[in-house]
């Protein structure tokens, strides 16, 4: 999604997915709460529905049962017919707008010929994921719950304002676009031979310059960033990515320009 355009129709149906990964508890418990009492996610003129995307994984408090639900929504897995069916059936998205949110929000763009992945949300016309951290898998933190809840409130308010005819002027937004995934250094048996360096740990979104430490081997040696470009690491030391062979993702910072948008109905 690289630019905005005047939508032909107001947004009618919004779905909010929690528990796409069963051990990411914030979404699980927000959705469970809204299934009991959905008042806070209702907006006039908009149908908002919460869903537990992976109930079996939620029950087991595991990321997934057999394979990662958030990687398989592609043609190969879904079949062309199903994709067409879903696109015609509903607009599914969770959307947020940086200027409405009081918390610092970073935008991670996974548009890349080989690194993009087929997310659950990609069945929608306007898919957006909200990633809040740090929170350990299997833990529900009140502060993170509060942040997620606020993001969703602002997202739904945005959609509502859009539907009501508010014009959103052109804007420039800074995004972090994925360039490359970096694996852990491994030994001849494929075992991890180095840890994310203490200087990089917890420094997501901050510039990493050539020569800056990236990894620390079990023998105490530092491995530094090569090349001649500054990058912006994200998903630094994500538990779920050890098996995906990703210690962190390198991104580049860009500014995207969006045209103004206004709901065409008004």
């Amino acid at each position: 999604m690289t630019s905005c355009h005047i939508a032909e129709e107001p947004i009618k149906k919004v779905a909010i997915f929690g528990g796409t990964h069963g051990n990411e508890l914030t979404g699980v418990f927000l959705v469970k709460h809204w299934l009991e009492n959905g008042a806070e996610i209702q907006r006039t003129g908009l149908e908002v529905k919460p869903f537990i995307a992976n109930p079996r994984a939620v029950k087991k408090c595991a990321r997934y049962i057999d394979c990662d639900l958030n990687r398989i929504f592609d043609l190969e897995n879904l079949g062309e017919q199903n994709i067409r069916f879903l696109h015609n059936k509903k607009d599914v998205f969770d959307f947020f707008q940086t200027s409405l949110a009081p918390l610092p929000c970073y935008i991670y763009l996974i548009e890349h010929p080989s690194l993009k992945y087929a997310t659950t949300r990609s069945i929608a016309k306007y898919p957006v994921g909200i990633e809040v951290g740090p929170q350990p898998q299997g833990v529900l933190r009140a502060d993170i719950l509060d942040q997620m809840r606020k993001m969703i409130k602002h997202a739904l308010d945005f959609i509502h304002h859009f539907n009501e005819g508010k014009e959103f002027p052109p804007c420039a937004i800074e995004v972090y676009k994925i360039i490359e995934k970096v694996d852990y250094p491994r030994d001849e048996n494929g075992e991890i031979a180095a840890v994310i360096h203490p200087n990089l740990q917890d420094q997501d979104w901050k510039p990493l310059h050539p020569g800056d430490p990236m990894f620390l081997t079990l023998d105490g040696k530092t491995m530094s960033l090569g090349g001649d470009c500054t990058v912006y690491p994200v998903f630094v030391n994500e538990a779920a990515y050890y098996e995906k062979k990703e210690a962190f993702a390198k991104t580049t910072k860009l500014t995207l320009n969006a045209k103004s948008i206004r709901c065409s109905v008004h």
Partner: protein
Amino acid sequence: MCSLPVPREPLRRVAVTGGTHGNEMSGVYLAQHWLQAPAELQRLSFSAVPVLANPAATAACRRYVDHDLNRAFTSSFLNSRPTPDDPYEVTRARELNQLLGPKASGRAFDFVLDLHNTTANMGTCLIAKSSHEVFAMHLCRHLQLRYPELSCQVFLYQRSGEESYNLDSVAKNGLALELGPQPQGVLRADIFSRMRTLVATVLDFIELFNQGTAFPAFEMEAYRPVGVVDFPRTDAGNLAGTVHPQLQDRDFQPLQPGAPIFQMFSGEDLLYDGESTVYPVFINEAAYYEKGIAFVQTEKFTFTVPAMPVLNPVPSPAF
């Protein structure tokens, strides 16, 4: 079950166990590293044996496969007749009991150090059985004095009338290192490095003792459990709220009656309704949701630890 008295001979048979829970990564990676390169576990008067306690759970990066290994060391599990349907960890506990025990026997290892991580903000926590474990208490004191910047807290787990069930209880003397916060499945360099340094210092302490160092009596402060508090739950048993922001990350800090402990999803606060100040630990530990524990309530107390016997120095090398 009898607790063996303070050692009067050098400690020769020492083990360091990691991966008792397969997703607590500091111990997993240390144990795997030492199995390849054990040199740093060697001292003049002994060599510590590295053990990967739960290989199947480690391979799957899970806490356990069938049953929590660190709850499987009771005489009921260890001594009952093996059957083909036994949970993986019960079989494994019996193997470890043969290797490091048998528990409560004269043949048991002199010392086992078990390595753990927690998602709770417990910093550097030293877990021993009770204030009567003289050797372990002197060891804890040594770590506290050696690393004042870590503010090592001592947690004594034994509750009266209850049998110990954890791995390090199979040895004559034992200690667990519990370092956090670290998410399950994540290896943080800072915590890994701290764990490694602490293990080295534990082994150095055993060497000092073996070489005839005197350790005089002292006063110690520690925390012992007085109860547990579960999350607020719906009738169906699901979570109805979570740890309040004012309690989150405040392990070992005093909790007064009337202070908020939970925040409900519907917005209101639940307050602590106990009658006295407690010191919560294991606040919001991921692995304890299924055990019905949002936090463990402890009380702080002080006690005297008697001096240890001074050994005659060991002639070296001794192995």
